[in-house]
C-alpha cells in the first residue's frame, strides 16, 4: 500500500512540476513514459497506473521520475547521450532491450536478402536450355564423306549388308550421333546420322545427317546455328581433336572431310 501511495504522490508532484516548469522539462520526462511501451505520451488521468507499472516492471533499476529529473538537471550537457543510452537499454518486451531488437531487425533483413538471392540462383531457369521439340518439324539434311585411312577396302565394304560394313557403319553412326547429340548448340535439333555407302580409297564413308528445326526460326537457324559452316566445323574440330588415336583402325582423316 505504501508503495502505491508513494507512486501516486510522485505522479502528482511530477504533474505539478511539469505544469509549473518550462517546456524543456516537460520534454525530458515525456520519453520515460513513452518508452514504457504503453504509447501514452501525455500525462492523463491514467498516469497513476502507468507509473505503477513502470515501478513494478523496472523495480530497483529504474530510478523514480523524481531522481531522473534531478540527475538531468545536474548534468544537462550529458543529457542527449544518456537519453539515447537509456532508451537503448530500456526493456521493451520481456527480456529484450531496444538495442537487441534493432540488431535482430538488421539480422533479419540480411537473412531475407541472402535467402532471396539463393532462391533466385536456385530457381533461375536458363531460357536457353528450354525448348519444345514437338515444334521442330522442318527437316534439314547434310551429306558428305570422310576417309578412314587405316582401313583396307575389302569386298565386305562393297555391300552395306555384310557384317563387316554393318559393324563399321554402326560405329561411325554412333560416333556422329554422340557428337551432335552432346553439342550445346546443335544437340536439340539433331535427329539422325546415317552411313549409307562405302567407297574405295582406303575406305571412304558417305554420311547423311538429319536435323529438324522449328518453322518460325528456320531462316535464322539456317544462317547461323544450323548453317553448313557450323555443322561442318563442329565435326571438323571433333576430327582434329582425335589426334592421339592416329594409328587406330577407326581413325578419320580430318583433311578428307567434305560436307554439302
Amino acid at each position: 500500500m505504501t508503495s502505491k501511495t508513494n507512486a501516486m504522490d510522485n505522479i502528482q508532484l511530477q504533474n505539478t512540476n511539469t505544469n509549473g516548469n518550462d517546456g524543456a522539462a516537460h520534454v525530458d520526462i515525456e520519453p520515460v513514459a513513452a518508452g514504457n511501451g504503453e504509447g501514452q505520451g501525455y500525462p492523463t488521468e491514467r498516469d497513476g497506473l502507468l507509473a505503477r507499472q513502470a515501478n513494478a516492471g523496472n523495480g530497483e533499476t529504474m530510478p523514480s521520475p523524481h531522481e531522473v529529473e534531478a540527475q538531468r538537471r545536474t548534468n544537462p550537457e550529458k543529457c542527449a547521450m544518456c537519453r539515447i543510452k537509456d532508451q537503448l537499454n530500456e526493456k521493451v518486451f520481456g527480456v529484450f532491450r531496444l538495442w537487441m531488437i534493432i540488431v535482430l531487425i538488421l539480422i533479419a533483413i540480411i537473412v531475407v536478402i541472402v535467402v532471396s538471392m539463393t532462391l533466385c540462383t536456385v530457381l533461375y531457369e536458363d531460357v536457353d536450355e528450354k525448348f519444345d521439340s514437338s515444334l521442330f518439324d522442318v527437316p534439314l539434311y547434310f551429306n558428305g564423306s570422310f576417309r578412314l585411312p587405316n582401313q583396307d577396302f575389302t569386298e565386305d565394304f562393297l555391300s552395306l549388308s555384310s557384317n563387316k560394313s554393318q559393324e563399321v557403319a554402326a560405329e561411325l553412326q554412333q560416333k556422329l550421333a554422340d557428337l551432335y547429340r552432346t553439342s550445346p548448340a546443335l544437340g536439340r535439333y539433331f535427329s539422325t546420322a546415317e552411313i549409307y555407302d562405302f567407297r574405295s580409297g582406303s575406305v571412304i564413308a558417305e554420311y547423311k545427317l538429319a536435323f529438324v528445326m522449328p518453322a518460325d526460326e528456320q531462316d535464322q537457324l539456317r544462317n547461323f546455328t544450323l548453317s553448313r559452316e557450323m555443322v561442318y566445323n563442329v565435326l571438323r574440330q571433333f576430327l582434329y581433336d582425335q589426334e592421339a588415336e592416329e594409328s587406330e583402325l577407326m581413325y578419320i582423316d580430318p583433311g578428307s572431310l567434305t560436307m554439302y
Partner: protein
Amino acid sequence: MFLWQYLAPFLLITIQICRAQTCEDFTDLDLSHAFIGTSLRIKLLLYTRENATCGILLSHTNPTAHPQFKLSRPTTFVIHGYRPTGSPPNWIHNITDMLLSRDDMNVIVVDWNHGAANVNYMKAVENTHKAADNLTALMKKLQEHGVSLSSVHLIGVSLGAHISGFIGASLNSTIGRITALDPAGPLFTGKPPEDRLDPTDAQFVDVLHTDIDALGFREPLGHIDFYANGGTDQPGCPKTIFSGGSYFKCDHQRSVFLYLDSEEQKCASRAYPCTSYSDYMDGQCLNCDRFGTAGCPVFGYDITKWKDVLLNLGQTKTYFSTNKKSPFCMTNYVVDIVTWNQEIRWGYITIKLHSGSKEAVATIDHKVSKFKKFTQTKLLAQFDKDVPSVKKISLKFTTGNVLKPKYKLRVLRMRLTPIERKERPLCRYDILLPENEEVTFRPIPCEEYNF
C-alpha cells in the same frame, strides 16, 4: 732497381688519378642545392664507342677539338628534364650504352643539372630558354666545323623535349630529328608553338606521351605522337599516393624505359592511328593501309623507317598498350565471338594462348562487352607476350556479378586473328562458357565464314 720498387706504386697511382680526372661524371647535386636553387651551368659529356663508360668533358667554344669527337659520325644529344632532387637521372648510362650499341655515333649528354635542380619548377622552366640559347650557339659552332645538322638527333626528356624544340626553332628546322620523351606539360600546355615543342622544330619530330594527366603534355606535338596506354596511367605504376615518390614520377619516367626497350629491339610495339584510346581498345583502329606494306608504325627508335609517309600525313596520333615491365610490348589479336544466347549477355573475356610451356594471357576488361544473339562481337585482345604457334586456347567468361545467378555464354564461333603477323586465323565452334570457368580447347584453322 731498388728505387723502382718504390717508384712503381707512385707511378700507378698517378696514372689512376689522371684517368679519373679525364672521366667526367654527371653532376650529382642533393636536395639542399634544390632548395637553395641552382643557376644554369651546362656540362657537355661525350660518349663514343671508344669511351662508352667514361664521359669526356667537351668545351663549349671548341667542341670538335677533342680527338674522340668524330665529325664523320652522326651526333645524338640526350637532354634531361627537371631534377627536383638534384640527383643524376638513373637511366643516363642505359641510354648512352643503348645508343652506342645501335650505331657508331657521338653521344653528347647535356648535363644541365645546375639549372634543372630547383624546388621552384618555374625557375627550371626559365632555364630551359637559357639552356636552349646556349646549345643553339653550340650547334652553330658544330655547323661551322662541318657537322651536318640533319645528322643531329636530339633526345629530350620532359623539359629537355622543349629545350630541343627551342634549339630546333632557332636553327630553322635544320636539325634532323627530335625525339621527345613525355614532354613536360605544366607551364607549357596551352602555349603557342614558339613557346613549346612543335613539328616545325626539326625535319622529323617523334613524341611519346606517358603522363598526359599530370606531368606530361596532352596535345600532339610532333609528326607522330605515341600515346602509351592512352598516355595516362601506366601499368605497374602505383595508383595511390601511399607508394611514395614513385607515385608522382613513375608514369612520367616510364617514357624513357619504353624508349630504351625499343632501342634494345627486345620486341616491337605496333602503334595504331586513332582518335582516342577507347576507340583503339575497342578494336576500331586496326587499319594500317595508309602505311602501305610497312604496316602500322613500330614505336621507338626505329620510327625513321616511316618518316616519309608520316611527313606526308602531317601529324599522326597513335596508340599502343604495354606490359607492366620490360619487355613492354604486347601482341595484338582480334577476337570475334558470335553467340546464340537468347538474352543479351554482358561480361569480360580472358583468353590464354598455350604453346608448349609458353603461355600468353589477354584480359579484355577495359569495359564490359556485349554479346547479342547471332551478332559478331569484335574485341581487341592484347597478349603479354608473343606465342609463336598456338596449340591450345583457353577462354573464360566473367561478369563480375556476385549477386546474380551464374550465366553461361553460348558461343557459336570464336575466331582469333593475329594482327601483326600474317597468319591464318584460328577458329573454334560451339563452345559453352559457364561463368568463371576456364574452358580449354584446340583451335582449328578457319576455313570459310558465312556469319
